[in-house]
């Protein structure tokens, strides 16, 4: 019997989760909670344990140790009513190729007590025109959108998206993001795993980074890894002659790739002002001048590198 879940309780509570496959430990004491309506991205390199973690959350795998509660139930012993409240888009496309898009979506809709309208869902994923097409005749990106349609057809309270936009072209990816944003606006709790860090940055309220089976960061995208405190990068290209004139301390502090010079600073205003003065004084043009905050990818690589180094 499902417990009644109050709006203030986390809808997902994972405590000290461990998963072993024989002698190999894939997940080593992962803990986190997710509140109703949150979009949480679980990131990590291949083999980090994120797929094991997500598959335990989805009820496909049993854990070795730890506790887990989703919508008041243990997913491994989940009831039908629990499954009706959870939607999934699995990592790989898993569709009957010989069926038509419309009949497949309708067949799934009839499994759920509070399903969305099949036409509305096909419209959301931009497959209305393909309703009568055989699934096997669709492109890979279109098939992935059918996967997404099947994930949301049951009108779930929680949606697991396992690399949902793999194989999408940029237009299709942005269209998928729009669907996820719309579902978020409706209050849907979403657990997203992805290798596209831009996707996590755009969609997620929170990022959980798993490396070597452990959570190494759990924060908002803007805060993860102390992102805001990391140095700003100033980059520009100088003519070769001007490059030789570059004074210290810039000369030794800079990273120089071909003629592209990159400086990292925590005092961007002063540094940039001094650089522009030097440029005017020596008539050294700063080609392709850019000032950029460290990206999520920079932070991700740094955190993963640190965590792997500590192993």
């Amino acid at each position, binding site marked *: 019997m499902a417990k009644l879940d109050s709006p203030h309780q986390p809808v997902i509570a994972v405590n000290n989760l461990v998963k072993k496959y024989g002698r190999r430990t894939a997940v080593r004491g992962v803990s986190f909670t997710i509140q109703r309506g949150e979009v949480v991205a679980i990131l990590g390199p291949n083999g980090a344990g994120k797929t094991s973690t997500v598959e335990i959350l989805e009820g496909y795998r049993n854990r070795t140790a730890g506790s887990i509660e989703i919508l008041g139930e243990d997913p491994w012993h989940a009831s039908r009513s629990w499954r009706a409240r*959870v939607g999934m888009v699995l990592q790989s496309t*898993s*569709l*009957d*190729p010989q*069926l038509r898009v419309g009949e497949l979506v309708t*067949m799934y809709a009839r499994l759920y*007590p509070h399903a969305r309208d099949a036409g509305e869902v096909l419209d959301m994923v931009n497959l209305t025109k393909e309703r009568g097409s055989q699934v096997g005749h669709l492109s890979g990106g279109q098939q992935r959108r059918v996967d997404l349609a099947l994930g949301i057809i049951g009108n779930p309270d929680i949606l697991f998206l396992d690399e949902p936009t793999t194989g999408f072209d940029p237009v299709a990816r942005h269209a998928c993001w729009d669907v996820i944003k719309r579902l978020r606006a409706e209050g849907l709790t979403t657990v997203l795993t992805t290798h596209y860090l831009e996707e996590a940055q755009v969609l997620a309220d929170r990022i959980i980074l798993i490396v070597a089976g452990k959570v190494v960061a759990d924060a908002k995208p803007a805060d993860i890894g102390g992102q805001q405190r990391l140095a700003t990068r100033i980059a520009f290209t100088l003519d070769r002659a001007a490059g030789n004139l570059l004074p210290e301390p810039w000369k030794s502090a800079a990273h120089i790739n071909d003629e592209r010079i990159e400086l990292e600073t925590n005092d961007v205003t002063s540094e940039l002002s001094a650089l522009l003065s030097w440029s005017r004084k020596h008539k050294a043009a700063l080609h392709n001048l850019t000032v950029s905050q460290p990206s999520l990818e920079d932070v991700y690589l740094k955190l993963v590198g640190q965590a792997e180094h500590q192993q």
Partner: protein
Amino acid sequence: MNKQVPSLRIFADQFVYSCRLLITSKLGVLSAALVPVLVILAFHYVGGAENENNLQNVAGALTMGIIMIAFATHATGLVAARDQGILKRLHGSPLPEWCYFAGRTAAISLLTMLGAGIAIVIANFVYTITITFAITLPIFVTILLGAITWSTIGTAVVRLIRDSSTSQTILTAIWLPLILVSGVFFPLSGEPNWLQDIVKLFPVEPITESLARTLHNNHAYLSVSSLTILLAWTVLGVIVSLTTFKWERS
């Protein structure tokens, strides 16, 4: 909030879904319709219309059709669905497991009976035998029982099959020797007694014997021992499936 879709409705949907899959997989339909017919035509070509073994051959062809469709086609389809991740997705939905398997078994049994119906019509044409309306029902009941038994065995052996590339080889290695040693097309009299005793315990000979006797005697025949053997294999198939079946590839 806990109200669920009635299981019987889901079972009916799964039956329709499985029928659609079978219809759209042309190979399944073709094998269902053609294999028993081809066997009947082959024996007719070799032995002629007046051969004394005609009824045995018709019974054998029907048995072979049951096994090829309810066992081989069914298990091949399950392995493919497992390998494609379709079963994993279904398992993550609120679909009751029994509805899926019952729907699939019902669909495969219907296809088996359709194939048998075509074979019976052809047999009426090519042989100088008459299959009366009175024995049609018992014949189809036997075919239905055989189809249910063999589809549960098919579900049970799916665990043995690593992937789709090996499914036909493994399945054929199971059903072909059984058909050959079970006296489906040739009498068992030439085989040692101990082998005859053993093969009677497998769910091939009871089906062939029931069909052959019904055709010979022109009235329903299904012995208690045959029924018990089919039932025992069905129960065994269900138990093995419940304990070993995996919804995704290892």
